[in-house]
């Protein structure tokens, strides 16, 4: 996927100018948090979050051990494990498996990992016919767009846009698609045939279970099960940090995931995949492959960003983030948007190209508050800004501005003399009107709001004067 994170602000401006889309995003920003809050209130969120965090920390600290255990179990169950250092290795491995199986058609379940590696494009270039079978993913696939949200890929599209898309792309003759159920029924009809004719099914995973070698997937549409059981080859693509020691650990996480993601206690489907069809099984694939992607996760492991590897991709931080709601998911310019994306994108791609993202944050802390993995997102974003300063990616005027401020504020007498004089002038100029419509060095501020004028002399000047008058000095 071509990355456009460097154009974050331009893309955000475009999104902000589209009134109707903006209003839909505003609704999302009200509706999703309300759903999540209600669902989370049913459990002891803090205790569960604490528990899952402890398990996840332990797993990450012993990742090599659990990865080995997982691999052994998958092999024992009759499956194959493939290791992919980066995106191109994962894509090549999948293509090799497809070619060996003489596959022509591929059905995919929703998987952010394969978005990360650009798998669909890779397979299509090689001549395979690939269908996304998650409804949201299917919509953005036929629209030729990337997902705008990690749970609801087509959240940005209106009902009318989807209707027009279906009427245009599906060659089904004359019909109206008057309401969403009609549209869903049509998608189901189109997709049904794809499920039945796919040679290879590819899904992601919400958790890899070391003890049993199972992979866990939650969906609401059941499409994950269909692409996993109908085609003769089943491929699971997951990144290495998805590991959990035992089934009960994975389920504890799911209790948080469903509530945080869509505001329900459980998803409609919770599936454990254990391997290929065994003798006597009525259905299931002939081959079962798990591809484990690193793609720089081992660099994050042991760094001050390790907490980010606990992310369970629920998307709560997205819909709770006022910057995401304003900018929209596409502005972030890569696979992962919102606060979690603003941390992951620079770490998994390039800090310089993604340098806007860690700055797309007011530090309001709402993301950390709702994060079911307890990730200190504002701290990690601040750390990335510090990395940008150290690498001199931050514009020079900001770096020098902060340096100057730091130097001045270190010497109270100098600071007070300088600010006292500057404030007196500023106050004299602006007091009558109350503020400034424009001000040198404050263009960003005054572009959209007045700059309130100082009341008068600085507090320190007035305080010292009062003390002198009172005879204390």
């Amino acid at each position: 996927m071509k990355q456009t994170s460097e154009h974050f602000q331009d893309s955000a401006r475009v999104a902000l100018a589209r009134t109707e889309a903006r209003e839909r995003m505003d609704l999302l920003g009200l509706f999703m948090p309300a759903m999540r809050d209600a669902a989370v209130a049913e459990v002891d969120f803090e205790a569960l979050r604490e528990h899952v965090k402890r398990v996840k920390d332990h797993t990450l600290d012993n990742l090599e051990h659990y990865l080995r255990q997982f691999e052994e179990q998958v092999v024992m169950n009759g499956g194959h494990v493939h290791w992919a250092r980066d995106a191109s290795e994962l894509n090549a491995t999948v293509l090799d498996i497809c070619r060996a199986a003489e596959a022509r058609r591929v059905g995919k379940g929703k998987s952010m990992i394969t978005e990360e590696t650009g798998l669909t494009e890779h397979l299509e270039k090689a001549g395979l016919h690939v269908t996304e079978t998650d409804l949201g993913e299917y919509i953005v696939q036929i629209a030729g767009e990337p997902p705008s949200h990690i749970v609801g890929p087509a959240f940005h599209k209106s009902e009318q846009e989807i209707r027009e898309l279906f009427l245009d792309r599906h060659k089904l003759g004359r019909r109206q698609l008057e309401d969403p159920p009609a549209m869903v029924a049509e998608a189901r009809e189109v997709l049904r045939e794809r499920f039945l004719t796919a040679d290879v099914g590819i899904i992601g995973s919400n958790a890899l279970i070391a003890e049993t070698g199972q992979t866990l997937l939650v969906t609401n549409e059941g499409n994950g099960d269909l692409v996993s059981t109908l085609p003769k080859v089943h491929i699971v693509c997951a990144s290495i940090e998805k590991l959990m020691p035992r089934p009960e650990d994975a389920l504890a996480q799911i209790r948080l995931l469903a509530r945080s993601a869509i505001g329900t206690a459980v998803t409609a489907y919770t599936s454990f995949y254990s391997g290929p069809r065994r003798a006597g099984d009525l259905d299931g694939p002939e081959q079962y492959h798990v591809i484990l992607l690193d793609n720089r996760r081992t660099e994050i492991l042991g760094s001050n960003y390790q907490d980010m590897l606990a992310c369970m991709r629920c998307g709560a931080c997205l819909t709770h983030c006022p910057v995401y709601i304003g900018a929209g998911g596409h502005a972030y310019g890569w696979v992962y948007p919102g606060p979690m994306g603003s941390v992951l994108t620079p770490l998994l791609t390039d800090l310089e190209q993604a340098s806007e993202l860690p700055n797309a944050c007011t530090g309001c802390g709402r993301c950390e508050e709702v994060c079911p993995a307890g990730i200190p997102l504002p701290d990690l974003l601040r750390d990335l800004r510090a990395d940008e300063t150290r690498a001199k990616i931050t514009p020079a005027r900001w770096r020098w501005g902060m340096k100057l401020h730091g130097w001045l504020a270190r010497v109270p007498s100098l600071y007070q003399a300088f600010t006292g004089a500057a404030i007196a002038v500023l106050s004299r100029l602006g007091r009558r009107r109350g503020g400034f419509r424009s001000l040198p060095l404050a263009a960003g501020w005054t572009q959209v709001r007045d700059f309130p004028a100082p009341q008068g002399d600085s507090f320190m000047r007035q305080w010292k004067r009062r003390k002198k008058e009172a005879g204390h000095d």
Partner: protein
Amino acid sequence: MSREHKPHVGFFVSCLADLFRPSVAFSAIELLEAAGCQVEVPETQTCCGQPGYNSGAVDDARPLAHRVIEAFAGFPYVVVPSGSCAGMIKHHYPKLLAEYPEWHARATDLAQRTWEITSFLVEVMDYAPTVSPLQGRKVTYHDSCAGLRELGIKQQPRKLLARAGVELAEMQATEVCCGFGGTFCAKMPDLSEKMVDDKLNNALDTGAGVLLGGDLGCLMNIAGRARRRDSQLEVRHVVEVLADELTGPAIGEGER
């Protein structure tokens, strides 16, 4: 109460109150004294270092943290009329100085002594302000993010306002950020504009004529946007109301 029994408070002015709104600092001191405290203002204080810390210039912020730690050594209480500065001292100094054991110990000690003003007045002093002239007017309150999420400040200002007879008309999404975010508002003005407009619209939807809050950064942002939109909304810091310091112009308002 004899002088010895009065709680000894070191007052941290905060740079925005110092430079733009001294009446916030004077009001806070007045309230602390009315509540029975003995207040001192160390004159070697400047800025808590938030601008540098939050924009990634941690090396420039660290010496400022040292300064504050030194200036406020020995006070049993340090009180700040800003949730974000108090949050900086209580939560972020120990992180900022984590690799310097001696400073870290001093930072942790300061963190335990530091209070945001409304929580200090309610939780430590159990203070009851006099009845406010704002009684009977429609007033709304913006919860600033740092105070709310780092320090749990939500009921404290409301309690004080209720004791002063001020009834609040709560706005929708009062806990959502106003789009200030320190340097964010200058770095990303378009997104900031959207957020502050949402805030302003929610405030105006309550029919309130006055918006109060506990952090000058947010208040200057909201007031600045209100002026730009020619809205008549009066924006003030909560301590100004509690101390009856209402004669001067509201934030961003001209002299009448």
